[in-house]
């Protein structure tokens, strides 16, 4: 009986200890585990300057401009608090759309414009048929004016 109880305690302590150690390590490296910086962090100067980092946010509706005769695009990213302009030359992923979340990898220029080398599209965790999405968008559009008057 006693050795079995002892093994149980030892294994219990092992699990708790590992959990605690891992929690502390992850806490210490929290910033490094973030895959991207938000636009607010970037504007606040928390993102590294002079080297590459990733920035994530939503593409502001109506902000996408294509330069004629090239692959260069400009758009604005936002986290609904702060906005950052992004310039990118290259092919955008299929899911890149205005209003869509994206992650761009590159450097912040002196003028505050982010020069992206790579643009990845993020998609959300919602899955639904197109008709449902259209219906949801319609309801949201109808609800919008009433929210503004409130």
């Amino acid at each position, binding site marked *: 009986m006693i050795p*079995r109880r002892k093994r149980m305690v030892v294994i219990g302590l092992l699990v708790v200890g590992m959990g605690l150690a891992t929690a502390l390590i992850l806490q210490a490296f929290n910033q490094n585990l973030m*895959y*991207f910086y938000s636009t607010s962090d970037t504007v606040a100067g928390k993102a590294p300057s002079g080297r590459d980092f990733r920035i994530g946010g939503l593409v502001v509706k109506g902000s996408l401009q294509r330069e004629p005769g090239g692959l260069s695009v400009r758009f604005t990213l936002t986290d609904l608090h702060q906005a950052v302009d992004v310039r990118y030359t290259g092919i955008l992923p299929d899911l890149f759309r205005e209003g869509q979340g994206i992650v761009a990898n590159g450097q912040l220029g002196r003028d505050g414009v982010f020069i992206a080398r790579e643009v990845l599209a993020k998609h959300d965790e919602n899955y*639904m*048929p197109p008709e449902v999405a259209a219906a949801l968008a319609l309801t949201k559009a109808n609800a919008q004016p009433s929210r503004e008057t409130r």
Partner: protein
Amino acid sequence: MFKRFHPYATPMHFHRLAMRLSPWLFALSAVLFAAGLTGGLLLAPADYQQGESFRIIYLHVPSAWMSMLVYLVMAGAGGVGLIWKVKLGDIIARASAPLGASFTFLALVTGSLWGKPMWGTWWVWDARLTSELILLFLYLGYLALQSAIEDRRAAARAGAVLAIVGVVNIPIIHYSVAWWSTLHQGATVSKFDAPSMATSMLIPLLLMALAFQAYFFAVLMVRARCEILEFEQHTAWLRAEVSGDPIA
């Protein structure tokens, strides 16, 4: 409490039970696979954003779930073997490791195939993808440990400790998308709100998850029997069983 199960937890009883159960489990998984695949690939509507490509979810998500479930089975069985010295625990742990590694590999490969057209990249080092890769390494480490140690008892003990220590990775995988900013999207099904997925898409996904589970347990029964045959090759009961003359 555990004493009561001891008579049934012997390799001999389990060998007979597994022999009876596995055909039923295989049949169940075949039916579930047929239903899930038909529902997912033919009946479910295309997604509003991802179109037809989202259908890889019916392989990717069940394999990812299984990669974690099998790990918990492996670590749990290993722990039972370690604490209560139940031989069957060691056998189950050892039998589930290659299956878990396969599910993890499948989750990583299908995720990569999904990531290229949707995100625009095969692989990123974000928290979700990296922690899932660590899970694969944990499985491979367990398998390497099993084949490196000659003595089966010692191998089972060392493997169980490794598996139990690695359990800490499971909540990290699950919550990685909530704790850190990742390219991988957040949870769809396993959250406190209602799943953010249309019912016509969700039902085939759950059927596929059940199909994967039934398949896992079916193969586990077969693999566990193989392990028992090796483990117990010098025992009287097994000789009697193989020569077809029952002793019990």
